């Protein structure tokens, strides 16, 4: 059962990472517009800027 000493911190760490990612996603307005991004993937790459600043 000593393996729990490893798996529990790992799972907690994973959960923490996901929470942080989620918070970041909310912060950067990713839940504001749920319609346009679905269409964005249809645009061919050359129309997109290289530095990806344009969202």
């Amino acid at each position: 059962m000593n393996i729990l000493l490893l798996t529990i911190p790992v799972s907690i760490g994973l959960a923490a990472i996901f929470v942080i990612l989620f918070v970041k996603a909310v912060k950067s307005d990713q839940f504001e517009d749920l319609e346009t991004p679905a269409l964005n993937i249809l645009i061919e790459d050359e129309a997109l800027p290289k530095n990806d600043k344009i969202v």
Partner: protein
Amino acid sequence: MEPTTTKPHTFLVDGMHCANCLRKIRSEFVSDSTLTDLRIDIGRRTLRVTPLEGFKPEFFKERVHKLGFEIKEAQNDTELETRIRAENKRFLYRLGVTAASTGNLMLVSFALYSGAAETEWAHSLEWLSFALFLPVLLYGAYPFFVSSYQSLKAKRPSIDLPLSIAILGGSILSTYHLVEQNGQIYFDSLSMIVLLILSTRYLVFKVHQNYLAPMSITDVFNQKQYVVLKGDSKSQVDRDNIQIDDRILLSKNDTLPVDARLVSTHAEIDNSALTGESLPQTIERGERIYAGARVLSSSIETKALSTCKTSRLNFLIESVNKGLQSRSKWVALSDRAASYFSVSIVIASIAVILTFWTQDLTEGFNRALALLVVACPCALGIVTPLALSLSFRRALNLGLLVKDHDFFEKLQSCHYAVFDKTGTLTSAQNFDVHWLPRPPSFVEASVIFALESKSDHPIATAIRRNCSKMYGVFEELPEVEDFQELPSVGVEGVVNGKNYSVRKSYIEGVQKITFSENTNPVLTATIHAEIPDNYQNICHQLREAGLQVMLLSGDSQAETQRTAKLLGIKENFAIAECTPESKAEFIQDLSRSSKGVLFVGDGHNDTLAMSRATVAISVFAGMETAFKASQAYFLKPGLTSLLPALNYTNTLVRVLKRNLAASFIYNLTFGTFALLGFITPLVAAILMPVSSLSLILHTVFSLNWSKK
């Protein structure tokens, strides 16, 4: 040096629908060095850029326009929108943290339930679940504690109170058991409760946002600047700076920012923002156009009659928002009931704990917790206000602007429908013009039109409309010289060297006009106020619905009885020669019989009667004073919205009753089960959100998809 960015600009773009449109705009600006951030939101039809120094909005607009899109600079977010957006984010954070904690807590619980509880790891795992529960308690459940505290401070216990007590009590007891290493631990079920209830609340929040976002004047105007004529020079003026008597030039698709009079000969407008009527309307010179109208003709000139703040549209929107904030009697009542309910649930659970105090405290606490969680006065606390607010929106779609929260409850109680005649049933815009001995020829009609187009009088407008009806739009009008308008007599002028006049006369209660050439009468016409064809049907259906239809008029006995007969109203229910006071007295006598009176009126002379009626509605062309005295307002000319509104009110009452009954049965059944120990706190935590959710869905669906 890094170039500095300026404030983001938001534009409204018409015509963006698909990936192709996105691509077009994108590729245009990919290599633009004056922009750093280009955000396109198809749902909101907005385009936001964060430009660098040197960005020229005009130039940017021009480029987007060249791609084939209509583009206009939009208003920045209002304070309210910013607040709602922030609240949405906070909600999402809370949900995310709670969900992550609960998920991991469930894993730990699963281990404990499936045998780990028997090993030496048991205690550590229990401490782990405590650690995982802390974010749920301190962050996820925080809003419940705040609202309970506030409700206690206001001495009006809310439905969050039993919940908060359950969560706090459960945590304290579980922690105590954890430290003592003896007894039940509830961290898993408690965090599940918080997660489920938070999710339900988020759903309600979203429903509110989608259906009930308060209107603001900026919703109608996507345009900030307008072209105003000053002498011969044109200048761009901000919407809020337009003054009365300013001459505003509007091009196609512009929205009129203020109430105005048309200066061009005629115009086609789309009034749907104000009336919901999507058919284009033709407006003749001198007629009034209300703020919010969209121009369909190529380009028109108007003269402002109000500023943006004093426009009728702004007035309407403000009253509605005020109405949305005020509380209906029903809501106040159900809030109070919810308080009593919450308090009695708390008392009942304390009683359960005390009963089991000496024998089996764990069992007692389990039952109390189940009761606290399962009991849900959702039908009272959430669904009733939601239903009423939805009704506001629905009534708007039906063409009825409701400004008083009590409107629906009052309308439900009405047994009499009393109509004012002049201005309500008949309108100043609709006249029947009947020519004698024959209709005018094209040449005569164009002369009459040319003369009358210089006058703003309603009768002049009626005659112009009549001429246009016969011969269509007059492309070229004859020149009028020596034009004269004689007040309450008529108009005259010289056309092609001949002296023409159109004179009004009022004989035996009938309005007549005479068209003369060189003082010889050529044609006469009688002008009757027109009663729309469908009114007879509406009156009939009102009677079918069990309402007693009556008519009050300041007109002569003969004219009133003529109208009553047309509408199928009994002779003794049509009262002629009314003064404002006698109208009010009549209404008051009616309502004395303790049956509700609905009064529909239009003007100053009706306001007294309106204030005495149980519920009053003012008609589309009505005056502002009438609107102030009434509880609702027709957004379309005519009375067509009345019946749907009545039917809708009946649906609303049915839905509210069904909700109450369902909630009563639910609470009685599962409350008893909880007290008897048949359901565990976890089952209760599932039942409660399911019940509130089904009530919310029931309300939203039955109110939105009720028969039209």
